[in-house]
């Protein structure tokens, strides 16, 4: 094998290797970009879930507090059902 042939062969191998390197870098970047994209999607979903939780919780607690207030108002407005004064006999 002549020196020129060896040089051509090595050059061809280097070109193939370079193509592999470029492909690997491209795949790795695509993969990293996909990972980043997925991360942003989950972040948005978490923000949405956190907002849903706070909205549901605050509304439910407010509803119960209102129910308690309504029960007490009804109790106070009904003669005989009003809470007896502190210390009064219940007999």
């Amino acid at each position: 094998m002549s020196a020129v042939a060896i040089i051509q062969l090595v050059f061809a191998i280097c070109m193939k290797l370079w193509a592999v390197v470029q492909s690997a870098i491209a795949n790795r970047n695509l993969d990293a970009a996909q990972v980043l994209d997925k991360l942003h999607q989950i972040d948005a979903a978490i923000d949405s879930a956190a907002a849903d939780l706070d909205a549901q919780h605050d509304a439910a607690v407010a509803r119960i507090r209102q129910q308690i207030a309504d029960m007490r108002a009804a109790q106070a407005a009904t003669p005989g059902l009003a809470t007896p004064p502190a210390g009064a006999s219940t007999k």
Partner: protein
Amino acid sequence: MTRFSFLAAIALALCSGGCGPTFATDARRGLITEKECERTAYETLLDLDKAKTDEIWNAQISADEKERQINTYLALYAPARDALRALTHASRAVETAIDLYEAGKGGQVDVLAAASTLLSAALALRDAGALLKFKVPGLDVLISNVQAFTGSKSSTRELRLALAEVRS
């Protein structure tokens, strides 16, 4: 020939480096698993909160008893919600640490320190959740994964020392 061998060696080194997972991407992959668990935790707490508040709302009890029950529930709910909020805050801090590392403005040890805080937040959520009988699906696996991540990535003596310094 020597020059071509050298070029081939560089190409091979680049190839092997390019094919292997980078630290940032590796950490982000772990974070995706953590965040999926986090989202499930929010959804689970939402279901639990709805069930518990509906139960109190529908209970045929006095106003005083209803008030006592809602206050008892809130005393357990608040720490769990705070722990979940802290977990989200910690995972965002890990994300930022990875971004900074990638931009060359932070080290692996900063990512590990943030992951260590995330681990503490996950453990706190497990404790707070237990009081509320709030079992986060996948939380135990998540804790193991974060422990494995911080353990494997801090396997070198230098990293362990640096991390200990950050923790102290």
